[in-house]
């Protein structure tokens, strides 16, 4: 049941209706049933359900066990505070922490192990085969990759780590845990929620509120507009440009790069708008996943604004624990004493950062393209970090920060860099991607802009017109938000007739201009595959 299918729209309408009909104490159980039904529809053989249930059970049991170890440990320390010396107390706490860590390790081995086996086994086999003679090649395995497994596994892992750290209490009710892991609007592409943020709003009863419902509805429509009117339409033109590479190189790569940047933005933020909108209709608040990422002035800032819940997950659960681990601190001390304070300080940060970006690349997909993409991000961020003092000097000397247009240059530069490395998503392998990026600079053929070649990519003049109008609307909303710091929906809701008019226009746009019919393929959201 794709988010873009009629059956999904009917399903959500039925869930919303039932959500406000059933007694409020049954609202969250209803969401659990709906979530499991949604997941069952994705694989009617029930295999996906089996995977997600195993993850939920393991997460639930291990959470309770870790919580119990921690609570008993705290109670013991409290009861024997007077009898224990500071060192004894520390040693006991370390013992408790070790026990919890063992349970955490076991739980992560199972949950992340499932993700690793289902998603990466064939990738590993393919790479091993490249070293073997053809006759000795290992056969690829027929393994299913459950829908949204990267997202729900990370969500479960964040819960387990938080319980082990003692920052949240464990959830005793298995069904509530199952809902946290499987909550259907965010199951397939996030945002990756934390238990501490989501649990209360997910389980508490919600009264119908017209304002909240309206805000949710308009956000859903805005999401569908971006996905169906823009992303699915522009995809038609991108497809030939990234597959027929002997014909579409040079300037076409530049065009494909910009088109893909626009498609991915509309596709991913559109999907998240639908997710957050559905939740808002039920009074459930989810974390924002984007804050105008294409208005970022550098790559570091971009990653603070794009796919925020994934970025903070990697920062909180990999970057910080790695960087402040005793071994890393020891390495930091060693490097500072041997390499000098300035350079030595950076060694651990750069090492942790490398591992984080490697993991980010691997998380995105079982292919070298994603790994190289992750490492390209790493290189750019590190180079920018190193060049920061130079930039500061340069800006100071020429007073560039005060010059109008410089901020625009920085924004365009960031969009170009990010779009360029994102081409690794598009082409079928790493060497080809490098070749195509190279051709953008060496084989530019500017004639394609004017000789009608763009009309041979599967889009008509009417399609381009729709895309240009769509671009202006999306850009206009972004600029309004960035300049006024105001929420568009809040402003619209102050004028009810205007609010209703926008809703009607969005419905008509999606119904009339949505990319349906011959030649179009209302596809999955791009992030579903991750």
């Amino acid at each position, binding site marked *: 049941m794709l988010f873009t299918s009629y059956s999904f729209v009917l399903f959500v309408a039925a869930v919303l209706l039932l959500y406000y009909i059933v007694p409020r104490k049954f609202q969250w159980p209803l969401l659990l049933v709906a979530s499991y039904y949604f997941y069952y529809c994705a694989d009617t053989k029930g295999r996906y359900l089996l995977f997600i249930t195993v993850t939920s059970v393991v997460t639930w049991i291990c959470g309770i066990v870790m919580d119990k170890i921690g609570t008993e440990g705290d109670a013991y320390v409290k009861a024997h505070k007077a009898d224990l010396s500071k060192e004894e107390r520390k040693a006991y706490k370390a013992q408790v922490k070790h026990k919890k860590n063992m349970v955490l390790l076991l739980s992560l081995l199972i949950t992340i192990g499932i993700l690793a086996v289902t998603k990466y086994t064939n990738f590993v086999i393919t790479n091993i085969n490249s070293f073997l003679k053809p006759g000795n090649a290992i056969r690829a395995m027929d393994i299913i990759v459950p829908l949204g497994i990267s997202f729900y596994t990370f969500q479960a892992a964040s819960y387990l780590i938080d319980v082990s750290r003692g920052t949240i209490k464990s959830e005793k009710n298995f069904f509530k845990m199952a809902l946290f892991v499987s909550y259907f609007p965010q199951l397939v592409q996030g945002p990756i929620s934390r238990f501490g943020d989501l649990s209360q709003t997910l389980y508490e009863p919600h009264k119908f509120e017209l304002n909240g419902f309206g805000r949710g509805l308009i956000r859903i429509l805005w999401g569908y507009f971006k996905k169906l009117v823009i992303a699915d339409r522009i995809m038609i033109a991108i497809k030939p440009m990234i597959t027929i590479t002997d014909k579409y190189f040079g300037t076409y790569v530049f065009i494909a790069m910009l088109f893909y940047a626009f498609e991915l933005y509309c596709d991913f933020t559109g999907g998240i708008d639908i997710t957050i909108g559905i939740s808002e209709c039920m009074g459930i608040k989810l974390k924002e996943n984007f804050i105008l990422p294409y208005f970022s002035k550098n790559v570091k800032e971009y990653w603070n604004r794009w796919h925020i819940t994934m970025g903070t997950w990697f920062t909180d659960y990999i*970057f*910080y624990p790695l960087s*402040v681990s005793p071994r890393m*601190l020891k390495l930091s*001390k060693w490097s500072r004493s041997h390499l000098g304070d300035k350079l030595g300080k950076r060694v651990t*940060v750069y090492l942790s950062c490398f591992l984080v970006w490697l993991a980010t690349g691997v998380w995105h997909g079982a292919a070298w393209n994603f790994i190289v993409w992750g490492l390209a991000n790493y290189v750019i961020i590190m180079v920018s970090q190193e060049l920061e003092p130079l930039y500061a000097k340069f800006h100071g000397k020429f007073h560039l920060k005060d010059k109008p247009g410089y901020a625009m240059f920085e924004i365009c530069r960031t969009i170009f860099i990010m779009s360029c490395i994102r081409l690794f998503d598009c082409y079928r392998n790493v060497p080809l991607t490098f070749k195509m990026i190279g051709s953008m600079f060496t084989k530019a053929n500017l004639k394609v802009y004017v000789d009608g070649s763009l009309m041979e990519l599967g889009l008509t003049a009417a399609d381009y017109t729709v895309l240009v109008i769509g671009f202006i609307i999306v850009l206009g909303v972004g600029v309004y938000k960035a300049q006024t710091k105001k929420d568009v929906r809040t402003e619209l809701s102050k004028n009810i007739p205007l609010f209703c008019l926008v809703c009607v226009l969005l419905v008509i746009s999606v119904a009339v201009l949505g990319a349906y019919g011959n030649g179009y393929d209302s596809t999955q959201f791009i992030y579903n595959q991750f």
Partner: protein
Amino acid sequence: MEELLEILRDLHSDVDYDTCETLVDDRIIDSFDIISIVAEVDDRLDVSIPAEEIIPENFNSAKALWALIERLEND
């Protein structure tokens, strides 16, 4: 506290650590700075700051960071 202020001033000398209470929220210090602070605190004050304590509330001001160090010392 003076030692901590010295660590912080080494990172960003232009920040008024006596009054600023939004070091993380306003992105005056980023994750790289935080790691440097943790390493320096470990080295110079002999206090280990675990990953779970790296939250904005603990790093938003010099005062909050000092309170964290004292708490970890007495823990």
